[in-house]
């Protein structure tokens, strides 16, 4: 199929090209700086490719950030898994087992999505301390699970709205109860929903900084806090924070690369006449 390049298309592509370059500039800068030796980093030569490629910044940054990376992995995996599973159960109830007042409860639930992290910081701190969870990872996990519930419940409720109610009713007549319908019918159809929701939660929790720094003691700090400390000293050797930020971005990148294809799969095909 041959397409004619109209002037409008050309303008569009030029604009898009400029935006891509603009967007990739920081990434290029991070990579180039990370690969230079500390002595070579200076403002006049900031854009130049390193004369000698220096991989040691990565291993050095990895050594420094290792505890934070481990903390972040535990935090993110646990909080993502919990908030996704709970959100899925919530969505199942709000879409298929509606009860008197469930719409109102759901609406109230959604308010949670619009509360900024900063607003609930102090009450959250006090609550966690009262619960004896302040300073450690479990407290931070709990905070992220609760804070993530509105969005995960919303995503799953809308996802389950596409599952025909007749499927649930049919399972009820076939003798399945609340949980067996969930495990045998609803859950196997939810894989795309789980992918979308956990991608979202993983990214949010991995990149979160404010709660990480305020709700955990030093040894339990997540990667975002570790990264900030790497760049926060008096004389900063810029190759280390740059290498660190690239390392910190890898898990999220990998998740997108491996799970992205599940977005496309339509697992619902064939359940009802299309």
């Amino acid at each position, binding site marked *: 199929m041959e397409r004619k390049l109209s002037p409008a298309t050309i303008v569009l592509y030029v604009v898009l090209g400029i935006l891509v370059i603009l967007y990739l500039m920081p990434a290029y800068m991070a990579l180039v700086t990370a690969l230079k030796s500390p002595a070579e980093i200076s403002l006049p030569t900031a854009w130049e490719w390193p004369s000698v490629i220096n991989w040691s910044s990565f291993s050095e940054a990895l050594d420094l950030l290792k505890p934070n990376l481990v903390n972040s992995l535990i935090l993110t995996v646990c909080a993502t898994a919990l908030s996704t599973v709970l959100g899925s159960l919530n969505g199942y109830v709000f879409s298929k087992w509606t009860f008197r007042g469930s719409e109102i409860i759901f609406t109230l639930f959604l308010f949670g999505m619009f509360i900024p992290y900063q607003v609930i910081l102090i009450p959250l701190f006090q609550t966690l301390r009262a619960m004896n969870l302040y300073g450690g990872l479990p407290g931070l996990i709990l905070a992220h699970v609760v804070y993530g519930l509105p969005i995960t419940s919303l995503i799953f409720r809308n996802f389950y709205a596409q599952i*025909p109610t*007749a*499927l649930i*009713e*049919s*399972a*009820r*007549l*076939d*003798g*399945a*109860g609340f949980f*067996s319908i969930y495990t*045998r*019918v609803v859950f*196997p*159809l939810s894989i795309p929903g789980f992918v979308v929701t956990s991608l979202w939660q993983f990214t949010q929790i991995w990149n979160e900084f404010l709660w990480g720094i305020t709700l955990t003691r030093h040894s339990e700090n997540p990667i975002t806090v570790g990264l900030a400390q790497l760049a926060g000293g008096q004389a900063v050797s810029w190759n280390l924070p740059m290498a660190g930020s690239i390392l910190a971005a890898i898990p999220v990148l990998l998740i997108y690369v491996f799970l992205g294809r599940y977005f496309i799969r339509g*697992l*619902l*095909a*064939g*359940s*009802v*006449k299309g």
Partner: protein
Amino acid sequence: MAKVELKSVVKRFGDVRVVHGIDLEIADNEFIVLVGPSGCGKSTILRMVAGLESISDGEIYIGDRCVNEVDPKSRNVAMVFQNYALYPHMTVHDNMGFSLDMAKRPQKEINEKVRKAASMLELEPYLDRKPEALSGGQRQRVAMGRAIVRQPDVFLFDEPLSNLDAQLRTQMRMELKKLHMKFSTTTIYVTHDQIEAMTLADRIVILKDGLIQQVGTPVEVYEKPANVFVAQFIGNPPMNILEGTVARDQGRLGVRTKRSFFPLQEDRKNLWEGQKVLFGLRPDAIKIGDSLNRIPPEWRCTAQVELTEILGGQSLLDLVVDDEISLIAEVEGRVQMQAGSSVEVGFCFDRVVLFDPETEEALSSVAQLEGTAEGTTPERDIAHKKEIEVHTN
């Protein structure tokens, strides 16, 4: 195997009443079709029997058990849904065996029963496929297989054929009928298609606005509709409904239109001279040509042809009688006539149904007044049951 009984069943959604006190007795092994326009409450009634909707008032019995508070899974009913509701992630085998699996039956028994049902429905080659790899008709069969495997007390069908194309629908209709003859399980079947109702039902229940209009065998509701609604809902094209006045001519009681007089077959005590009536004639009760010989001369008149439509074996004629009454006749053969030409027509007035113009209810014939009443009287039920027993033997 069980009878089903509805006693003054009411369904309210909030303040809106959609089913107004339904009384219905469904005999063991009977095939009952609930039919009516959309919004008449037929699906709601079915879902109340299934347990998917609560019952606002009244009682539903399956067998001798009141099931008002019984969970759907404990009612031992199987339902086939309009969109099949197959589990998309399971194979045909697992779809059909799901209910047995839920009942914790041994795997061997499940395999056996599924295989048996599959061979009956010619689904054996597809047992390992998922629903998405099946055609519409095959999916429909899987849905039926899922119901059969359970050996339920009652089959419930919610417009199961409405997603199929016309040809497949006719074929599946016949298969359904055969299945029922084979299993003789009590069946409640909901449809808006009056042909499905006529062909499948032992008895038809016609509903409108949450009320039963008539209960009867297909022939009864066709020939003796209880009111104008039933007369026009059952049959395609619908019954012709015309206006007239009761009169007496040469000693015979009959109906007078503007220019004609048609004597009734017998005297009726519940009619009086001068009474306004509506009279209904089925399109196939209007004859032309050779078939006129069987119609006495006093039931004939002249009509103008407005339009002819050839259906294949039959033809539809749009006719005008007395310059103002238009009606549709369905006649045998291919009839080609000029618009505006005159034709002699004969009415099978022995099949006429008279209605009260105000209530639109049928004015019962003398015979009906004298005892053999319509609908759900016990005598009729017993007679009907006997008829079924004869069928199944």
